[in-house]
């Protein structure tokens, strides 16, 4: 279709806009935001007549590339270190995609602007596409990569694993609670525009450097649909901003969404990119460098800050704080170390770091070796079973962390951990902002204002609770992270597939029971709890126990 006729076509389909005459549509989803009917234009002109052939053509190229990868024996040069992390990533990401699809009708219900509903409906179809294209990529990995374990039971794993649960915020957060908080601010304004759009750009490049050129193909094709989603987010935000009563809620939601995205996405993508790669060229950008460029410069400074003049209160302090966490407090390194500590509760294999890795980390993050080097040397030393326990049960000066009730990543920057008794239960939080999120933001009253539609944080948010007192072998088999011989574990702390070097349930059985930090916290007396917190805050970095001299 020519451009001119496209513009005319787009104009024509606006005649379809519906003004109810006999029955108002049922409004299932609710928001505390208020919207005036407004003729905000759909900024992106999209007509389905050109949309379907365009997507079909993209699909054909994706599937052509997949054929090519198989024909070219791509997996002979894929780095296992990298592909193992895809067992986690690709188990998580299809749910966020369909959740984004589900969130679009929530916006129809609350945003009174028929012109935007078209764009939202197309986004819904895009998201269905993304979910299935990703399930399909994972299927291809399962069929062609050396180790299918972890891919073949992917969605079961995802649904019962703590990492999967952390990732689920990035799905349930889009579709539950206040419709605008969820589907607009959390999903389109922060998650899609800042974090996925920018950092998912980094993943394909890293995949290619590790011999995998299918992930770039699939994710570039996914990424090329984002333009619509970014426009949708923008248009809704501008409508929300036009009513001054919304500003307090926008400020709340931007703080929550920004911080939660930082906690979750930086943890996951940061680990994949820094610890999942074999590419240690010094001029390869580190995650911190990418973050500075894409999140800080591009998203924060060039997308968010200009909105300040429309009355949006930008969480400047939290942007700076997130950077401090990444650059000074080693957030990504602490998370990767924790993932590796807890390898046995997962469903992928985690490679040890080598001297070449150490050199790169030290170059990119001066002081890295002093903090994390020794621990990773211990990790390598304890990698294959040889009469010892997995690293979590060995003395390597690492204190097993408590879990953050809000973001569900453990409280790894120990000095920042805070506690509060909320809903009759003592909870630990990794940071004051996560405490605020649970104790203040997700409540029916916020700063004295009624917020009857705000969501709640629910569920068994600390996974260890479910297995309190269990033997580790039973934990692992209950979760299903066992290979088809019935005893070898899916997860391994190394990449050697020699069955003699692999950990089995028998090795797990020799360990002490798994105890839930939260159950224990709630059994403490007040004095014990205070002492626990004082000690915890003095721990670290790298999970070291508190110095005994003070």
């Amino acid at each position: 279709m020519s451009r001119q006729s496209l513009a005319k076509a787009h104009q024509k389909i606006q005649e379809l806009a519906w003004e109810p005459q006999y029955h108002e549509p049922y409004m299932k989803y609710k928001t505390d935001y208020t919207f005036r009917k407004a003729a905000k234009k759909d900024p992106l002109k999209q007509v389905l007549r050109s949309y379907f052939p365009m997507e079909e053509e993209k699909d054909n190229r994706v599937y052509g590339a997949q054929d090519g990868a198989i024909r070219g024996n791509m997996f002979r040069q894929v780095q296992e270190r990298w592909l193992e992390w895809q067992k986690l990533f690709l188990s998580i990401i299809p749910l966020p995609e369909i959740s984004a699809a589900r969130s679009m009708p929530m916006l129809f219900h609350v945003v009174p602007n028929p012109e935007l509903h078209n764009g939202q409906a197309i986004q819904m179809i895009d998201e269905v596409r993304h979910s299935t294209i990703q399930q399909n990529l994972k299927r291809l990995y399962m069929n062609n990569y050396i180790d299918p374990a972890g891919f073949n039971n992917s969605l079961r794993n995802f649904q019962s694993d703590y990492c999967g649960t952390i990732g689920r915020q990035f799905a349930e957060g889009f579709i539950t609670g206040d419709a605008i908080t969820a589907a607009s601010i959390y999903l389109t304004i922060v998650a899609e525009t800042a974090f996925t759009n920018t950092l998912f750009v980094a993943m394909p490049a890293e995949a290619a450097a590790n011999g995998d050129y299918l992930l770039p193909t699939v994710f570039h094709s996914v990424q090329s649909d984002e333009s619509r989603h970014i426009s949708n987010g923008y248009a809704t935000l501008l409508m929300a901003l036009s009513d001054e009563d919304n500003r307090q809620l926008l400020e709340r939601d931007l703080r929550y969404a920004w911080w939660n995205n930082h906690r979750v996405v930086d943890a996951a993508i940061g680990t994949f990119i820094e610890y999942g790669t074999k590419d240690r060229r010094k001029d390869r950008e580190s995650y911190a460098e990418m973050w500075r460029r894409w999140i800080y410069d591009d998203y924060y400074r060039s997308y968010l800050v200009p909105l300040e003049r429309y009355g949006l209160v930008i969480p400047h302090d939290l942007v700076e704080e997130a950077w401090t966490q990444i650059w000074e407090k080693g957030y990504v390194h602490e998370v990767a170390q924790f993932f590796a500590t807890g390898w046995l509760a997962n469903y992928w294999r985690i490679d040890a770091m080598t001297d070449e890795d150490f050199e790169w980390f030290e170059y990119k993050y001066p002081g890295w070796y002093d903090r994390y080097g020794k621990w990773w040397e211990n990790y390598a030393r304890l990698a294959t079973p040889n009469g010892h326990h997995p690293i979590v049960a060995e003395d390597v000066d690492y204190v097993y962390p408590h879990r953050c009730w809000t973001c569900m990543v453990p409280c790894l920057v120990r000095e920042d951990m805070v506690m509060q008794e909320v809903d009759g239960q003592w909870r630990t939080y990794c940071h004051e902002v996560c405490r605020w999120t649970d104790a203040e933001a997700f409540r029916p009253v916020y700063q004295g204002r009624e917020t009857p539609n705000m969501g709640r944080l629910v569920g068994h948010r600390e996974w260890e609770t479910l297995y309190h007192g269990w033997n580790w072998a039973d934990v692992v088999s209950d979760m299903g992270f066992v290979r088809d011989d019935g005893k070898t574990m899916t997860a391994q702390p190394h990449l050697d597939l020699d069955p003699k070097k692999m950990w089995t349930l028998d090795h797990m059985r020799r360990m002490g029971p798994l105890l839930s930090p939260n159950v224990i916290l709630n059994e403490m007396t007040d004095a014990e709890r205070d002492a626990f917190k004082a000690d915890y805050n003095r721990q670290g970095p790298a999970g070291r126990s508190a110095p005994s001299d003070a």
Partner: protein
Amino acid sequence: MGDKHVVRFEPVGIEIEVDEDQTILRAAAEQGVQLMHGCKEGQCAACKSFVLEGEDIELDRYSTFALPDFEREEGQTLLCRAHAYEDLVIELLNYDEEIIRGGLPLRKGTVEVVSNEPVTHDLRHLVVKLVEPSEIKFFPGQYMDFVVPGTDETRSFSMANTPNRDGLFEFVIKIYPGGLFSEYLADKVQVGDQLQVEAPFGTFTLRESRTSDLLFLGGGAGMAPMLGLLRSMAERGVDRKATFYYGARTQQDLCFVGELAELAERLSDFTYVPALSHAPDDDGWDGERGLITEVVKRRESSLAGMDAYVCGPPPMVDAALATLTTLGVKENDIHYDKFTTTGEPEA
């Protein structure tokens, strides 16, 4: 640094200069033009646009999912990856006009008074020239804040002219007793005086994507932004039908009569309707009489579908809003900037 080329964006009519070494998106951002974009890596397609004129463009590495070959051949491009090697005209496919215009960087600066001529008994035509920085960009119809010399107070005045390379800014300011800036303007100011300013502010700008007829309604120093918009339309050959209702008390309150007549020649379909509210019966005035809003009501039966721009003393603005909505202008299509001062009451 490479050579520079002019890139013009349609349908918003904004021009920027782009160095060959920069991407067009980057150059736009540096010059305060906020274009819709996402990844800036040539992957998300949010900045995809259509090249109307010119073809010498080089693209940095990009994803062919974001810009397949057939679209590139059709003339589409990705602004975040595109370098211009000649002057270009680019049609934006994905943009929000308000945001594009909101994007000009706010700058503080120093200006020097060039002239300060009376155009009526109580209106001054103030012209200043920028000393530093070398440029403050604005869109016709926007306004500037002046620090009143010797105080911490600022006063806002709309530009009456269009952006120009000489760094000149023109204003129409009403002098009345007791006004902080008025008194300074009336009694103290000398050519060559320096003033501290900050600009640009306001959204009293033409919505370029629209083709509907235009109605301007002004009074007093509300002349200034109207002149800015009309001059800009004439310079750019915008051929939308336009009517300018201007309210004044008596004939001696009318100004820029010659220029408005000249604009009527240059614009394809422009009518200027001055109306006097306090003209003596015997002064030979053969034009409209009465409050300007009453005149509009008399002359227009329906204004449905039109875009209206209103600027004047607050009571006139209030009356105008009521009149215009009654005559069928949609609320969203009435533009008035609550900060666009007319120079009236400063207190």
